[in-house]
């Protein structure tokens, strides 16, 4: 992408189809974040994120954009074809690009970012006692390492 932040923002909104949002709330109904975070609310929900983006709110400072798991659910149920996943992905990319905040975890083997901080924190909390260091590797590297150890 090139151009100013505003142009990039426009590109993200167009690509994700966020302008078509009719605020029906179907994405909120299926969003797994509701089960994951106790502070789930309008600000964090896909509908809220879409609305806040459209009203020009500065979301790059807000840590809630890192809570999304990147699932398909909201996109699939949307009657208007809005992809909230793509929208959040775009927002994250912009936030990283502008150097405002970055809450991704990088794979310790390949170095690629593969998951965001709040998501991995949730997984660690759920698993509790057994949180091994395999959590720091992306699934592809983890498979390869497991194969290396066991083949």
């Amino acid at each position, binding site marked *: 992408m090139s151009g100013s932040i505003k142009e990039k923002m426009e590109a993200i909104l167009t690509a994700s189809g966020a302008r078509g949002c009719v605020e029906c709330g179907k994405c909120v109904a299926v969003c797994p974040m509701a089960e994951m975070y106790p502070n789930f609310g309008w600000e964090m929900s896909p509908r809220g994120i879409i609305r806040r983006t459209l009203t020009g709110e500065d979301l790059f400072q807000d840590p809630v954009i890192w809570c999304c798991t990147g699932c398909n659910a909201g996109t699939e149920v949307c009657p208007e074809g809005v992809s909230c996943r793509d929208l959040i992905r775009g927002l994250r990319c912009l936030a990283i690009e502008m150097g405002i905040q970055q809450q991704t975890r990088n794979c310790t*083997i390949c170095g690629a970012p593969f998951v965001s901080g709040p998501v*991995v924190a949730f*997984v660690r909390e759920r698993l509790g006692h057994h949180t091994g260091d395999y959590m720091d590797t*992306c*699934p*592809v590297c*983890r498979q390869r390492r*497991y194969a290396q150890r*066991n083949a």
Partner: protein
Amino acid sequence: MLDRRNRSETTMTIADLQPVSRKIKPPRRPPVILFDPARCTGCGECETACANRHPLDATPAAAAIRVLTSEKDGRNFVVYCQHCQDPLCLEVCPTHAIQKGEDGIVRIDRRLCTDCGLCALACPEAAPLKDPVTGRIEKCDLCNGDPVCVKQCPEKALKLTRGKALGWIKLLRWPVQALAFFLLVMVFVGTFCYFRAGSVSLQCPAGFLQNLAASRTLWMIGLGSAAVLMVLTLLLGRVFCGWICPFGFFLDLVGKVTPKFGLPRFFKSRMIKYGVLAGAVGTSAGLGFQPFCTICPIGSLCRSYGPNGVLNGAQMAFFPLVAAFEVGERRSWCRYLCPVGAVLALAARIGLIKIVIGARQCKKFSCMRCADICPTGIIDREALMQGVSPKIPMAECIMCLRCVDQCPYGGAKIRFQWQKTAPGEGVIPDAWANPSKKEACT
């Protein structure tokens, strides 16, 4: 994009959302697929077969099984869901879409799954695979008990099994323990400490050391007899502790009925028993007699049978106290305190035999039965979790062979020290932590 709304299986009724009233109890030995890396040629037949199960969305990437091939060292590996005893994916799934059925198969409920990928994140093997085209999570459901990958594998590298434990070592060990208890406690009263039948004599090695310190005289007969047990330990490991020791038998019996509450951390140091040994020998040297032997629970038990063999004084206090540690962990006395075990541990350290966990068939994190049943708790769960074969410290192993006996897949074995170990035993190889090794990670 896959449209889930148009699929009949995605219809959800209100009855599906009701909580299940009865608790689902998976079978003790569920069916699993065993993979033999030595047979696998990496042909990918299993992937194709798996992807074509649902002809409507057949793409090679939609398989729930993935073949990893390494051209460099010519090794192949297959990643697939192991249907864990205690699935981690089930715990993290935010929508509770993953359930373990009554047949022991872990399934994803398509109506609830949001393809968020947290299950892949939680799995030590990352077995739930994300289809790169549709973004769907694919996880093995064992084809409801009749997997096509097993049928299609041309080299028979995949095998469906319910596992079969040996089971007979248990039937051997309990009678041996009972017989040893009977002989040492009831027939030859007071005999473990110094046991003499005709020309054969045996002495407790810890008692021998204390005797040496106390009397400052080396009794050759004592040395010889203590050496017998040491040589036995050198050859076979601490078989005395697991198979012969009457107090160990007693603890095993007590441990069968008592609940386990765990022990405080400061207590859980396996070095304490060496300290107890040093203390026992030291006090003997200082006092000129053997104070520890008077309260030693093993000796107390051996001397307790018969008309004049009741527990008395300090023994009366010490013996139940030690037995009470059994509510902490199984064989707490043997793990942390026993000085006799400490002497034998010194010999077992350089012994000939070792236990190998994690042979090719081992299911690692998904089973962990060996770690559950090990009475001394020396099988490293964390290593199994990481897919590494845990190294067994032979100094702590009491050679009860429960792991060898109970492993359903034959993954635990007895080997000589110089023989080959299980793949990837011990520490994690550093080569994989090296960031320069960026191969095909996206």
